């Protein structure tokens, strides 16, 4: 990359100079990576529909007679709604719940990952 050339040049300068004599006038390697024009500022609408209504209905259980639970509001993959686990637990749960309809390659990779994580957690490291 172009940057590495300049990095090399900067290092050559600094390598020969003792620490006490390094001064600004000798040039700073970092100067090569500073951009002189700012990008246009990112315009973030803090009051769009999603941000203004964030968190509404989170207390649907306690305020709504417990007919619903807030975990039913979560939108996401079926094996992760209202549930948390480490990587091995997530892989096992995914295999249990959607393994029968996954693509063959993905299922194979998932099985390999489960095998690897089982061996890692139960045979390697300090905590097993």
């Amino acid at each position: 990359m172009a940057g590495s050339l300049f990095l090399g040049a900067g290092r050559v300068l600094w390598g020969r100079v003792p620490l006490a004599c390094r001064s600004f006038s000798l040039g700073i390697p970092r100067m090569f990576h500073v951009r002189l024009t700012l990008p246009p500022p990112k315009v973030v609408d803090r009051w769009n529909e999603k941000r203004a209504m964030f968190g509404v209905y989170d207390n649907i259980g306690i305020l709504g007679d417990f007919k619903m639970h807030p975990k039913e509001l979560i939108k996401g993959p079926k094996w992760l709604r209202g549930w948390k686990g480490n990587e091995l637990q997530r892989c096992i749960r995914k295999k249990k719940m959607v393994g029968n309809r996954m693509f063959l390659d993905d299922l194979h990779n998932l099985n390999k990952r489960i095998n690897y994580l089982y061996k890692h957690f139960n045979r390697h490291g300090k905590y097993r």
Partner: protein
Amino acid sequence: MLQLGLNALAEEAVPQAAKPESVASAGPQVPVLRRCELPVPAPRRPVQAWVESLRGYEQERVGLAELHPEVFSTAPRLDILHQVAIWQKNFKRISYAKTKTRAEVQGGGRKPWPQKGSGRSRHGSIRSPIWRGGGIAHGPRGPTSYYYMLPMKVRVRGLKVALTVKLAQDDLHVVDSLELPTSDPQYLTELARYRRWGDSVLLVDLAHENMPQNVIAAVSGLKTFNLIPAVGLNAYSMLKHQTLVLTLQTIAFLEEKLLWHDSRYTPLYPFRLPYRDFP
């Protein structure tokens, strides 16, 4: 909020924010008074708030409402409020970041060159993490969920603390009902500016069915004025909006729902399954 006797309502003349007093144009009206239905524990007295009306610009003291102190003047536990706000932000979060490990990157099954003899460093596959284009060793793995639940009583207390803090900082306004004379969004913004409510207002009515059409139309045209049913109230929205406007029915609903948790038995099975004496 000043402590006023309900009897002395007529003579009380201290303005809320140094605005000139003005009597309602329809002549002397009966003030709207609301007492706490639920029992207030003995050493504490109900905390009071003006009941306002949205029908006219200057109808700011249409009555007086007594609010239960355990809900609207509980200890200002900012740590609980923080816990609840962070919980609301995170428990729904599912991060979809995923990288391929060296086993998942296409290719890389064969040893690129023999172990000894070629003079190059030894490698077993071209997709190991030290290679360009190889897998990532410790990257994000698959959709991760950050779900957790705070205890129910902590979430309830967070709501109570949020209401307390809003009332204590003069950001809570009680309204008799959310009826507007027009459905013009401009009217609402002018009203909020006249009464110095702030940039963002959260209006809370009791249920979706009985919301007046004028309010729905006015609020749908505005970004920072939002209307929600009482079931949708939460600490995060209360912190996001500068002012909170509750109706009298909403206050009764909230008090009943939030105070029940102070004196309930621990659930032997989830509350969504039927109990003999609840609801």
